Structure formats: C-alpha cells, structure tokens
C-alpha cells in the first residue's frame, strides 16, 4: 500500500497560496501552529505557488507587514517537522529544493493522495 510510506498524522495542512498576496498562507500556518500546540502531529505540504513560502530572502509587505517567513522559522519550536514540498511546483518555478529557507522533502504528485489518506484531518489553504 502506498499509504504505508506516507507520514501519518492528525492534521495535514496544504498551503497553496504564496506569501503577501493574500492571508491564506498565514491563516493556514496559524491553524497548524495551534494544532501542534494542542499536541497534535501536524504535517505541512507546500503546493503550487505556495512553494514560494519557502523561498529565502523574503521581506516585509506592502505597508511594512511582516509576512510569514518569521512564522516558518518557528515551526521547529512547535515540533512541526514534517514539511513537504510539491516537486512539480518547484520544477515549474525552477526553484531548487536545497535552496529553500527550510528543509522540506520534495514529493511528487503520486504521493499526495497517500499523504491525504494518512492524516485524520486535511485542511487546504
């Protein structure tokens, strides 16, 4: 079974939106942090243009708001270590997995279904 090598967990948060343009990325990260603070096992999948969340060198937004890079750096403190990134999206944007601001495991589309199946709750942002 495919799903046996997928990471199991309580919550999978799929982050499909890039930083700054909308608050979806921040809202999804907030949900992940709260779940982790409640002791749940949380996995994150950065998908589509959401992989830009992991791009290094981000700055402040249009009126100086801080964005999400600082929040991402706190994930380890919340024991959120299951980070996955959509390999197809990285390829499409020509971003290198080893040049991201955090270490995240590239996964191809064939593994996404197994990841979704292996988590009790899945939230897409």
């Amino acid at each position, binding site marked *: 079974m495919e799903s046996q090598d997928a990471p199991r967990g*309580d*919550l999978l948060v799929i982050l499909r939106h890039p930083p700054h343009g909308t*608050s*979806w990325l921040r*809202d999804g990260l*907030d*949900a992940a942090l*709260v*779940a982790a*603070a*409640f002791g*749940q096992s949380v996995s994150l999948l950065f998908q589509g243009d959401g992989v830009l969340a992991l791009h290094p060198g981000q700055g402040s937004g249009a009126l100086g708001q801080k964005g999400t890079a600082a929040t991402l750096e706190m994930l380890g403190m919340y024991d959120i270590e299951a980070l996955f990134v959509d390999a197809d999206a990285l390829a499409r944007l020509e971003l290198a997995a080893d040049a991201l601001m955090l270490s995240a495991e590239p996964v191809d589309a064939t593994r996404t279904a197994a990841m979704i199946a292996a988590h*009790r*709750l899945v*939230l*897409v942002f």
Partner: protein
Amino acid sequence: MRYALLVQGAPYSQQASHSALRFARAVVARGHTLSSVFFYHDGVYNAARLAAPPQDEPHLPDAWCELHAQHGTMLLVCIASALRRGLLDEREAARHGKSGHSLEPPFELTGLGQLIDLGQACDRLVTFSP
C-alpha cells in the same frame, strides 16, 4: 453523526456562506447533529449583526442565528480573524476602548483551538471556502 462546518467566505460576495447554510440545513434534515460552525478568514463577516441586505436577498447572519435557535448549533468566530476585521462583541469593544459593538450572541468569539477541537470531536468537518 456529528458534523461541523468551517466557513471561510465573506457573505454576499462569494457563494461559500450560501452553500454552507444550504448544506447545514440538509445535514440536520438527514438526522445528523450539527455541533458547530466555525467562521475563519473572511467567513467571520457572516457574524456582522448590523447587516441590512435588501428584502429580496437572504439575510445570512439571521439565517445562521435561526440554525442556532432551532438546532443548538454553536456559531464560533475566530477571534484573531474577527478583531482585525472590526467584528467585536461588547467585551472586546470595551477592551479596545471602542464604543459600540458589531457582533453579539449567539455568535461567540473564540480561539482557533476550537477549530482543532472540532476536527477531533466531530465525525465530519466540511469546509466552504470562497
């Protein structure tokens, strides 16, 4: 079964709220329990007590209140999403030194932790996004 909904769309501009209400009514009509609706992101605007839509349009905040009155469904509003968008109950208005309030019971301001609780305690959590 025990259901909960997550609503993330602003009323009137997106169909998400309408879809969620229609689904909510069908859930209870099929004999399930709808414990809670959690409003997040722009979904918190569903709680605006001053909403005054034209007569020939559905009154979404009132429709949610009716769901609460008839079926006891809790109407939970993410406090962090709500405050920045100007949805304050009397207590929060006082705390922020503002006169007046824009949200009142049965809508309740609450933390995001409640959403995580619902995900655990309910058999199904169905999301309606914009």
